[in-house]
């Protein structure tokens, strides 16, 4: 396993602060465009409250990282953005989840329509058992997108920085690629439908450090065109790639039931150097995990 992923080791946390990129001049809040506005967002699994009253604004062309200990609901929260929680029959999302001011959970909204615009990359690379080309073309095909498919595939693979490695073997099964290549192919597949947002659920946790570095580089590159939200266990990763960081934690209720809460959300630099909440400070410096 990648030692960077061990989120409980204190030296890593120090490393996380060092990993902050030197110049991270973000536009002032009033100049940022809000893509997602969540107010009082909660998720229930059956009667169990898994995530409580989250207020957050996600900004356009930013990389936003969700960090926090296991079970704090950060992945659950990520799946609210493309309504993937709908697939779990017992899951229920409440509160306001607005996408460009439109309620994502309104009865008139088609979840399929939502997922067209909001792409997702999963923890474990999950290419379909098809060729590289067919994987990339899957989204545009099911959505009936017009235009030259070859060009679309090429553009997507280039955006995901994997074109040079696969351009001579597009008909080869995707499962023959290495793990890191598979993950970049999955990113290409998500980008092929021209989404506005890319959700990434611990995209590097199954990858080696070199493949991880490539994906991180890619995230920074992608934010020029897309809005990226990434869930990560790796503090250094958040420090390296994210403009904004949200720290989630767990509150243990009376019967031992765990409920996730958003503790603090701020610019990444502040989160790692001068957090306003003690719990954030304890987490980023490794005193709590």
């Amino acid at each position, binding site marked *: 396993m990648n030692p960077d992923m061990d989120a409980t080791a204190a030296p890593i946390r120090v490393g996380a602060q060092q990993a902050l990129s030197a110049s991270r001049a973000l536009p002032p809040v009033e100049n940022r465009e809000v893509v997602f506005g969540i107010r009082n967002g909660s998720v229930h699994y059956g009667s169990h409250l898994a995530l409580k009253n989250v207020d957050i604004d996600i900004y356009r062309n930013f990389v936003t990282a969700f960090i926090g200990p296991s079970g704090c609901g950060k992945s659950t929260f990520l799946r609210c953005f*493309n309504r*993937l929680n709908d*697939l779990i*029959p017992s899951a229920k999302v409440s509160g306001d989840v607005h996408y460009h001011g439109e309620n994502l959970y309104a009865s008139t909204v088609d979840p*399929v*329509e939502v*997922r*067209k615009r909001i*792409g*997702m990359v*999963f923890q*474990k690379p*999950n*290419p*379909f*058992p*098809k060729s590289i080309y067919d994987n990339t073309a*899957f*989204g545009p*095909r*099911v*959505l009936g997108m017009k235009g030259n498919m070859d060009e679309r595939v090429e553009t997507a693979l280039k955006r995901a920085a994997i074109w040079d490695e696969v351009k001579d073997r597009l008909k080869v099964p995707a*499962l023959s690629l290495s793990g890191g290549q598979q993950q970049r192919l*999955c990113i290409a*597949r*998500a980008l092929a*439908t021209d989404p506005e947002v890319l959700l990434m659920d611990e995209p590097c946790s199954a990858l080696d450090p070199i493949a991880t570095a490539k994906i991180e580089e890619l995230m920074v590159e992608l934010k020029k065109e897309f809005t990226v939200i990434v869930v990560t266990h790796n503090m250094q990763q958040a420090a390296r790639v994210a403009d904004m960081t949200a720290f989630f934690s767990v509150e243990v209720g009376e019967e031992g039931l765990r409920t996730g809460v958003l503790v603090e959300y701020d610019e990444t630099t502040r989160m790692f150097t001068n957090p306003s909440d003690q719990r954030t400070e304890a987490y980023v410096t490794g005193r709590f995990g």
Partner: protein
Amino acid sequence: MTSRAFKENAFRLYLYFSVAVGVVALGALLLRVLIDGFGFVDEVLLFNPPSSNPDRAGARPAILATVWLLGLVFGMAVPGGIATALWLEEFAKKDRWYNRFLELNIQNLAGVPSIVYGILGLAFLVRGLGLGRVLLSGSMILALLVLPTVIISSREALRAVPDSIRQGGLALGATRWQVTFRSVLPAALPGIATGSILALSRAIGESAPLVLIGALTYVAFDPSPLNAFTALPVQIFQWIGQPQAEFKSLAAAAIIVLLVILLMMNLAAILLRNKFQRKW
């Protein structure tokens, strides 16, 4: 020798013995059939209709009927079985009582003795619907017989497709239908095909339900779906019952033909599985 080593050796001996029982019994059976029947596997057996004269008796109508049965059973049981499996695995709400009830029933149906299907066929198809003792009735019964097996093996194959494939498709904006038909079903198809072939090979070896609905044992004409018919297992059964020794050899020869058909089907299943085997 320590007692643990002794136990290990004793257990290993027991395992060898268990394997040997099966292999020896099967080998003896095969050898016997081959010795008895091999000389009789000739063009007379393959191309002649049955006759009371063992020198001219063949199994042509029975072989053709078995091929017919195979095709008809495939056409009836496999599409329906796959569709049922797709519904149960991909679309049905698994927490509803009626879906659970359906599942339980299918499991139980797979264990119902084939003769019971024969009774059902006789009462419902042959007499109730008035189809008569024809090949179509026989194939419908066999289709019913293997349907639960096809459903169960198709569900296994669908369940082996990891959820990440479904989520990946849905996250790209595909509908449930698109994900099912473009990603999940193609991924599960090799497994479904393997299971279906094995189920079919069970069907063509069945004789009890066919005897029950009256698959005639003396059919001198080539079969068609709406005519009286016989099938290889039934033909074998009938020849064995004849007093002349030659018919017993003919039965052995017909068993060889049936075995060859079965082995070819199983071989196809194995090849399919190996060719498309996937690691996720």
